[in-house]
């Protein structure tokens, strides 16, 4: 796996059912194990090491799963994109960047047949906050997407980019594609 694929896979994994399952498991398993132990044996000296043991075990399982399942998860994502019926370019380039920073995405649409009215298209894309790029009717600029949850201390990630891209496809592009078939969608970072 190339490094940019690995970075993309890590982000995709977090929003994949397996990622959710392992992350919830990492929280729930130690709590459930400790609660069960307390109910069964009423022994705090046994429960505390069990709690930490299970906790670190599941956390390790999460990282191991993310590492081991990365290729599968990426393949899943690719299959989903392929099943949409239109070509999506740049999806993994955006989320696999080495240094994620706050920024905007440019989305360029290419229709197979007659394109919809530009004004209508603008209002559809507005549902996810995208605005028409100046100079082109089929190019749209996303709202500013953040690259970390907080200001300091939180690490940079492209997970918000992926979330916005998914929202774009599920809420906007799939309904548009049903009426005005799309040929190609290009996603890229807006250069500043």
């Amino acid at each position, binding site marked *: 796996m190339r490094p940019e694929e690995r970075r993309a896979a890590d982000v995709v994994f977090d929003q994949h059912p397996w990622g959710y399952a392992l992350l919830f498991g990492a929280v729930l398993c130690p709590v459930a194990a400790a609660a069960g132990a307390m109910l069964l044996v009423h022994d705090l000296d046994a429960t505390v090491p069990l709690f930490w043991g299970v906790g670190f075990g599941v956390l390790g399982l999460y990282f191991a799963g993310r590492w081991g399942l990365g290729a599968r998860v990426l393949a899943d994502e690719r299959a989903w994109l392929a099943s949409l019926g239109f070509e999506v370019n740049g999806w993994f380039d955006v989320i696999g960047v080495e240094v994620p920073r706050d920024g905007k995405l440019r989305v360029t649409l290419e229709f197979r047949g007659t394109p919809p009215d530009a004004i209508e298209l603008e209002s559809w894309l507005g549902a996810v906050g995208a605005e028409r790029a100046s100079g082109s009717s089929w190019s749209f600029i996303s709202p500013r997407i953040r690259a970390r949850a907080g200001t300091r201390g939180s690490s940079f990630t492209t997970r918000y980019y992926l979330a916005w891209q998914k929202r774009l496809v599920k809420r*906007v592009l799939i309904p548009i594609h*049903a009426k005005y078939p799309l040929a190609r969608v290009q996603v890229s970072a807006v250069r500043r």
Partner: protein
Amino acid sequence: MTDELDALARQGRRRLEKLESARRAKRAAAAPPSRDDRAANVIAGGSLLTFAGVLALSAGPALVAVYLGWAEGQIGLAWAVGVLGTPLGVFLCVKLRPLLAVYLLARERAWVAALPFPVHGWFEVISAEPVPGRLHATLEFAGLRPDDATLERLIEKLDDVTSLRGHALVSPEFEFSYGVDDPTPSNDPYLSWQRAVLESVLLPLHREFPLASARFHKP
């Protein structure tokens, strides 16, 4: 599918309108304040009425809550007043202060117009861009001109730093800094000096040596 696209278009239009209005609000906020706004804010900032209003609205609910809880023993009501009233009071402060400032500006205008001699430049000085500097007060007398000793005596009562130069009173250099540069400079010191000069020099002087006019200006 068309229904879905129509709903999507409605959502999109709403969101784009919201974006546009947010952008407009941002532009309006970034625009420099109008001259009247600046003068009104300077006057409101130094006004006892503003101070009392802000204090009453922001601390009032808490005080009422303490009274209710302590003296009346109505703990539930006290919590409700404190928790709901304090944000409401702060909100009202934010919303009412600009209105009060406009009222105070009108009152100040009327007050300056009602002085026994014409005063020029009062509002020009406090509505200008707040930059450090000196202020001059140039006096014109209707008849007899007082000698310098009389003026000096009055100025000494005013403060130690205002000086006399010909027919003009010269203010100290206003710096706008407290160790580091003031991040929000205001014309407040200029207004204070103007008021002090008016109260302790011009009005007493006018009784003996009638003034034709007084003019405040930056050199």
